């Protein structure tokens, strides 16, 4: 029953504070910080962080409900909200008492915003090959290198940077928190993108950037594992955003089909188009069940959770993009106009098949899990 209340709260908030601005934020490339502050006041800033320092203490499933609801009003904003939540969780789960006490009270209300920095110009899918170095210098690390495609970069306050403190490969990677305005931290130009325009995406550049060692999250060499654990939840969250896009697109298509007439009949009376809606529903509902299953597997500490999360991300992002695409087709010529919303759901959900691990990497992870279980009953 509380899950319904939580979902209703998220939908009401979205109707009032998000959906009316979706088009404008996309057209004018506005990063809606004010809206995030309001969302955080309701507890949406650190949904699955412990209550001790301001988190909401809720589950991954609750988070999925919230991100799906907000995405029906703006996929991009929901996605950034989920990235911020992922970063807050990384600090909450791995940080020292001092780090948690310092950062969570600022991240939970979203008075400070966070970005997740793993990808580099030379290492995307091959994330463990990252080259940004963090050389030890007394009580400091000196960072050199650059990160690519960082969501929120330049507008956020805290950067969780996966960098090399040790040897090659995943075991040489640590996670270091870099605050904005640290000398040696700079940003590339704002990228021009197909979608996610309500969010700046930029390169993050480190040039002899000195960061106190007390900003390291977890022991040296644990950064890659932490990054991957963050991504498990991140994948459920991004998949949830895709669900919201598909849901809104399907509803929009249904409404249009009840209004548009051709050949003397409503579009909704043509069987071929009815079958489209039915197939879209199958795609959406199956995706939703899988995403929620993945969220629950994380909540229950199931050791098989990472594979389920990858499977959910793979399935939902692809199926839901297809739902948006089909919805656009059902709108005919009007679907192609920027005045109609489905094109934005389409553009914004397209990248979900790419980031937080491409769907090709998701296939790798799922196959590895299946083959690895050869011999299990």
């Amino acid at each position, binding site marked *: 029953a509380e899950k319904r209340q939580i979902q209703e709260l998220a939908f009401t908030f979205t109707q009032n504070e998000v959906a009316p601005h979706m088009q404008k934020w996309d057209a004018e490339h506005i990063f809606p910080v004010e809206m995030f502050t309001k969302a955080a006041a309701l507890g949406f800033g650190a949904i699955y962080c412990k209550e001790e320092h301001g988190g*909401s203490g809720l589950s991954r499933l609750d988070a999925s409900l919230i991100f799906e609801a907000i995405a029906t009003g703006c996929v991009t904003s929901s996605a950034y909200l989920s990235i911020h939540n992922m970063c807050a969780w990384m600090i909450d789960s791995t940080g020292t008492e001092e780090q948690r006490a310092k950062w969570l009270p600022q991240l939970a209300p979203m008075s400070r915003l966070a970005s997740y920095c793993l990808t580099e110009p030379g290492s995307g899918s091959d994330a463990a090959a990252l080259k940004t170095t963090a050389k030890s210098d007394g009580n400091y690390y000196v960072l050199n290198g650059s990160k690519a495609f960082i969501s929120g970069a330049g507008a956020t306050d805290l950067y969780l940077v996966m960098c090399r403190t040790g040897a090659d490969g995943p075991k040489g990677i640590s996670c270091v928190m870099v605050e904005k305005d640290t000398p040696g931290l700079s940003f590339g130009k704002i990228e021009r993108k197909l979608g996610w325009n309500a969010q700046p995406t930029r390169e993050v550049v480190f040039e002899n950037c000195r960061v106190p060692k007390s900003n390291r999250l977890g022991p040296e060499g644990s950064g890659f594992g932490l990054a991957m654990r963050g991504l498990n939840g991140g994948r459920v969250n991004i998949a949830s955003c895709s669900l919201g896009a598909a849901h809104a697109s399907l509803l929009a298509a249904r409404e249009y089909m009840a209004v548009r007439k051709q050949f003397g009949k409503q579009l909704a009376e043509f069987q071929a188009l009815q079958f489209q809606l039915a197939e879209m529903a199958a795609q959406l509902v199956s995706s939703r069940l899988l995403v929620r299953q993945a969220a629950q597997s994380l909540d229950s500490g199931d050791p098989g959770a990472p594979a389920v999360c990858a499977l959910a991300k793979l399935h939902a992002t692809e199926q839901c993009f297809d739902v948006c695409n089909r919805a656009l087709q059902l709108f005919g010529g009007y679907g192609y106009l920027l005045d109609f919303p489905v094109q934005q759901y389409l553009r914004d959900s397209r990248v979900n098949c790419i980031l937080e691990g491409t769907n090709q990497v998701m296939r790798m992870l799922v196959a590895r899990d299946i083959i690895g279980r050869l011999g299990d009953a």
Partner: protein
Amino acid sequence: YIHIINKADMAASKGLKILVGCKRVIDYAVKVRVKPDRSGVVTEGVKHSMNPFDEIAVEEAVRMKEKKLAGEAVAISVGPPQSQETLRTALAMGIDRAIHVEIPLAQLEKLQPIHVSKLLAKVCESEKPDLVILGKQAIDDDCNQTGQMLAALLDWPQATFASKIEPSQDSKQLRVTREVDGGLETIDVSVPAVVTSDLRLNEPRYATLPNIMKAKKKPLAKMSPDQLGVDLQPRQEVISVEDPPVRKAGAKVESVEDLVGKLREKGLVK
């Protein structure tokens, strides 16, 4: 300084005890459909939520608590089992505890304001609130009767269509600004009193996630109309419910003379 513990004295450290009525109604955004047998509207499977005027009433009670004008705020709902969800929303907004007067399904459709006001009056006998705040009307039946009937049954003063509630000059009464046809009317009412909320009284807050979780632990008591000794015999019989007539096409006129001519034709102007 010394507080005088006097029920009518707003400066009393305990503050007013407020009872807030909430009704579960079909959500305002839903396209209501008449049942094929014309006995009523379709409610099964349809989204329901708290009557918007009741949300405003709940918000006012919570604000009065925050301003220390009120000490305890209790929400009450008369309705089916699902009314508990409505009460949980009130609790999540900041109400302290809730009372659910559960109405059996058979009697639900025939429930009228006269029944609800009698049930509320009975609850007031035991709860002894200083102030009852109800929404001015429910968006399903638009009766605008329950608050007025309740005040009459209790023989309490009433201040309906409130757009502002504050302590009176001498702090011994409530000063209520009412929205009436002629404009705004300000009256002072003694407590205990019944106030009904109008649209501009306040803007209700969102529940927050922590408050939704806290609401789970707040007390929710159940009562039946039998326990309260109220007879729910219907006084009215609904004969039929129909859609409003489909809007007919209009006609365009070229000049003022044409317009007056047409009005005369229809017997609307002499």
